[in-house]
């Protein structure tokens, strides 16, 4: 296995992005399923949070995620820099094919990264949360999503994530050597968006309180 040699190629950097992306996607899915426990009442979601701490997965997961984010970002940065040097600039250019999702991967990624920072300060650390008591997950969430601007920010970020996943899933499988149907990426993206958005809207409409 020649990891360095592989990483030196553009394809190798894409492989790193695909693998780290897959890791983060796995986390996002678990995160989403965890969020859905909010529908079973305050005890369920608060208990779930405690249970995660009790079994000691929180910090290992954070370290792994941080590594994924770092690698994903570094590879993306290097590829973007190379692409910027390589591509030509036209006086007149019309897009023919590239989907919106494919064209917004880079800025979409930046938006998601910014949101993650806000999200951590809001619901993990609690600084930006109207309630802001660590461990009171249910209360924090409900306090958050009563405000339309929080719901809006959250929605924008989740949609950005959805677009990112839609092209990311397809592109990652392509990078790893398998051409899949683009419908798979779309399906994953829609499921994740629906799962994540159900919580804020449920709170906002009073379904969860």
């Amino acid at each position, binding site marked *: *296995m*020649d*990891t360095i*040699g*592989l990483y*030196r*190629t*553009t*394809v*190798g*950097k*894409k*492989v790193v992005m695909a693998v780290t992306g897959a890791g983060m996607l796995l986390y996002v899915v678990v995160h989403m399923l965890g969020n859905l426990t909010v529908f079973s009442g305050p005890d369920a979601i608060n208990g779930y949070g405690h249970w995660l701490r009790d079994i000691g997965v929180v910090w290992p997961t954070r370290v792994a995620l941080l590594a994924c984010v770092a690698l994903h970002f570094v590879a993306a940065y290097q*590829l973007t820099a*190379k*692409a*910027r*040097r*390589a*591509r*030509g*600039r*036209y*006086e*007149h*250019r*019309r*897009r*023919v*094919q*590239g*989907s919106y999702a*494919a*064209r917004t*991967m880079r800025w979409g990624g930046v938006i998601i990264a910014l949101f993650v920072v806000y999200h951590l300060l809001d619901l993990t650390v609690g600084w930006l949360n109207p309630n802001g008591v660590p461990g009171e997950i249910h209360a924090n969430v409900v306090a958050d999503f009563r405000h339309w601007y929080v719901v809006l920010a959250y929605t924008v970020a989740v949609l950005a994530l959805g677009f990112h996943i839609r*092209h990311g899933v*397809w*592109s990652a*499988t*392509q*990078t*790893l*050597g*398998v*051409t899949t149907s683009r419908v798979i990426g779309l399906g994953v993206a829609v499921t994740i968006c629906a799962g994540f958005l159900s919580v804020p809207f449920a709170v906002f409409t009073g379904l969860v309180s």
Partner: protein
Amino acid sequence: MKLTLRIWRQSGATGRLVEYPMDDLSPDMSFLEALDVLNERLITSGQEPVAFDHDCREGICGMCGMMINGMAHGPEKATTACQLHLRHFRDGDVVTVEPWRAEPFPVVRDLVVDRSAFDRIVAAGGYISVPTGSAPDAHATPVPKPDADTAFEAAACIGCGACVAACPNGSAMLFTAAKATHLGVLPQGQPERYSRARDMVAEHDASGFGGCTNTGECTSACPKGIPLTTIARLNADLLRAHTTRSDR
């Protein structure tokens, strides 16, 4: 029919778009024939004609290529500039014509660019090593028809560079993958399959092309419709080349 051509003119390091109104065109002309008409007019009026690459004018040599209204080879699908006919434009249209633009394709003059990077990618491994005279009988190895068809589909690449010109990353992965797929699915190409992928991609990157982000611009611009699946095949072969012990 009338068209206004806005054509990139460049003889040194920089250039600009120059406007040429044309009112004596026929819808049956090919786009390059319209440039011929313009050039004859420029020459007789003492100006320098527009330099553009072209040769076979039947869509197979891959020599011609230009951005026509921001699209590689113009608006028609699966059509090279030489086979694009004016009947696909509306009378009075303004048509912008630019050379392929990518760092590894420097402009030589006007619409002419240097695509020698493609030759280097092929030289790096886009072949089967079989010196003349060393071949077994042609029927010694039957090739399943689906494999032969896949190989053919990829081998149809004409090396025009439209994929690079259209790519937002300036990537030549479709070109590289077409050759790797053509040779990589045939039984004759197996011995060098993985080293070929490794060496061609290394040369691709060294030539300054960008990485692929699977946007699909290339395949929709490709006059021969080379599919994106070729890139997945190349990626798989490259991964294999780097994750197993050296194949050389």
